């Protein structure tokens, strides 16, 4: 495991060095994504012109949800860039080169690509999150900061699991599982707003079947001292990391199942 992380660091630094040749294009892609995504948040701000609060959540509080969801999701996307291009890796037979190395294939896939541009989105999430933290009415003590850290970690782990599951489908289909976008992009958009605004069936699915609500909603209820509108037990916020880790675990199991189905290419 430790070895795996060291390998990751090693391959990544090689990646970054090779990408540094195109420094300017990085900066451009980073900046454009950052600014473009800020406009998305601007539309949330515009909505608040027409209302004082969204289902009892102030703009700062919604910004906290939005920022944490975006940040966790984008960070996870950066880390799993290799899985993002995995359908292509498989289609071109490049996965062969990974399988002939005596290291964990998954770590090698992690390290096979680094989409710097995605940092732009992460930065946007962090920016909005930062403003929210500064602006929100919360006494930031050790407990709060730890909760925040655990919550972000949980989110990263949760989305990484989903990305891996989606990529693993490329062992069967050419395109990977695009429907996974519903849970990744859709999921991070969903938890950018309070869960209470959605239909009951949606909430139930994303609390009890897919633990999306634990990515940031329950931890936020804890941080903001809000009452759980669904009347679930008070320990829910603390289930965040364990449940999210479960998703990652599921993705690992699925991966090991899928890798045996790898067909390579015809030459």
């Amino acid at each position, binding site marked *: 495991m430790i070895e795996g992380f060291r390998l990751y660091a090693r391959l990544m630094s090689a990646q970054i060095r090779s990408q540094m040749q195109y420094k300017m294009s990085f900066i451009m892609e980073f900046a454009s994504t950052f600014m473009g995504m800020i406009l998305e948040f601007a539309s949330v701000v515009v909505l608040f012109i027409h209302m004082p609060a969204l289902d009892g959540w102030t703009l700062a509080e919604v910004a906290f949800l939005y920022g944490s969801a975006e940040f966790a999701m984008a960070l996870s996307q950066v880390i799993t860039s290799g899985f993002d291009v995995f359908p292509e890796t498989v289609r071109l037979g490049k996965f062969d080169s990974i399988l002939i*190395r005596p290291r964990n294939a998954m770590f090698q896939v992690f390290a096979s690509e680094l989409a710097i541009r995605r940092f732009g989105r992460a930065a946007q999430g962090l920016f909005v999150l930062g403003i929210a933290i500064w602006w929100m009415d919360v006494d930031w003590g050790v407990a709060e900061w730890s909760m925040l850290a655990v919550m972000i970690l949980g989110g990263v782990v949760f989305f990484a699991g989903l990305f891996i599951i989606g990529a693993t489908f490329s062992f069967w289909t050419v395109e990977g599982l695009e429907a996974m976008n519903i849970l990744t992009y859709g999921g991070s958009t969903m938890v950018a707003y309070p869960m209470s605004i959605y239909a009951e069936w949606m909430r139930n699915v994303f609390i009890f079947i897919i633990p999306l609500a634990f990515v940031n909603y329950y931890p936020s209820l804890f941080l903001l001292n809000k009452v759980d509108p669904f009347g679930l037990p008070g320990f829910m916020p603390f289930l965040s990391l364990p449940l999210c880790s479960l998703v990652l675990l599921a993705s690992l199991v699925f991966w090991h199942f899928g890798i045996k189905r790898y067909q390579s290419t015809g030459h």
Partner: protein
Amino acid sequence: MSFIKVDQLCKTFKVATHKRGFVGAIRNLASRQHSLVKAVQDISFQIKRGELVGYLGPNGAGKSTTIKMLTGILVPSSGQITVGNIIPWEQRNQHTRRIGVVFGQRTNLWWDLPVIESFDLLKYIYNVPEDRFKQNLKKFEDLLELGEFSNTPVRSLSLGQRMRADLAAALLHDPEVVFLDEPTIGLDVVAKDRIRTFIKEINQNAGVTFILTTHDLGDVQKLCRRVMMIDHGKLLFDGPLQELQDRFGQERELEVDFADDYEDVSIPGAKIIQQQGRQTTYRFSREQMSASKLIQSLAEKFQIIDLTVREPDVENTIRHIYEKKLLSHQND
């Protein structure tokens, strides 16, 4: 004592079939059909340490598929493989430490990194001790002349350079067995020679086992004592190159210079394949007629100045096998 054991190996691919045209495209939208391709069928063989085996067969025969199973990339549909008692796809970690792989069609190196950095990463990935790494690198640099391009990113290398880099990379960690899938594809004569010499050197001096697929019979002649031939996924021949030639190299050629212009120089049992002035070339099969018999019947009718008997070369033999499907008839 066999090092590599392959027993009743099979691999079947499931391939989606697309219908063509506008209507076809709409039907694809609704349903997608699959067909099965039997790439490798029931192959068994054994290879000892230190052997250098050529794996031949026409396009689409199943060579690469076999190599991919031997290297642990593909999991067989059925059958068994062990390489030194290890099952490639199950104990990938141990297996890959002991093997080296080169795909002529595609590099295993990091596309954007300079060659030397790729080597550095490999040193790390395989835990090659520093001194051993230096030693190997030195050796390969001499043998393959890597020096001139070791700081160039892989993507900018020429095909020949890339192949040399890949070959060196496959051997950096002192593998016990090396799989080469078309290692000389697209190379010029000099580059081919260099690679052949290199392979021979490593095989003889370090005792490394080699299995190589190729369409270049120069590779086979220069390197392989043993050849295996496969077609339509079935192993058709496994033995020394000489035996292949003796068995299937049936067509010999006789070149005759006549002393005079003759109207009709045909002889039953021999085919005239070329006629140029007074020089005529016959092709005749070993089974139907001996050379002396043919010469005798020619000498009875015509006056002969000069004669040459040509034994079939490997290329012709193999062309003969591929075209006539000789071996598959024997097996079926």
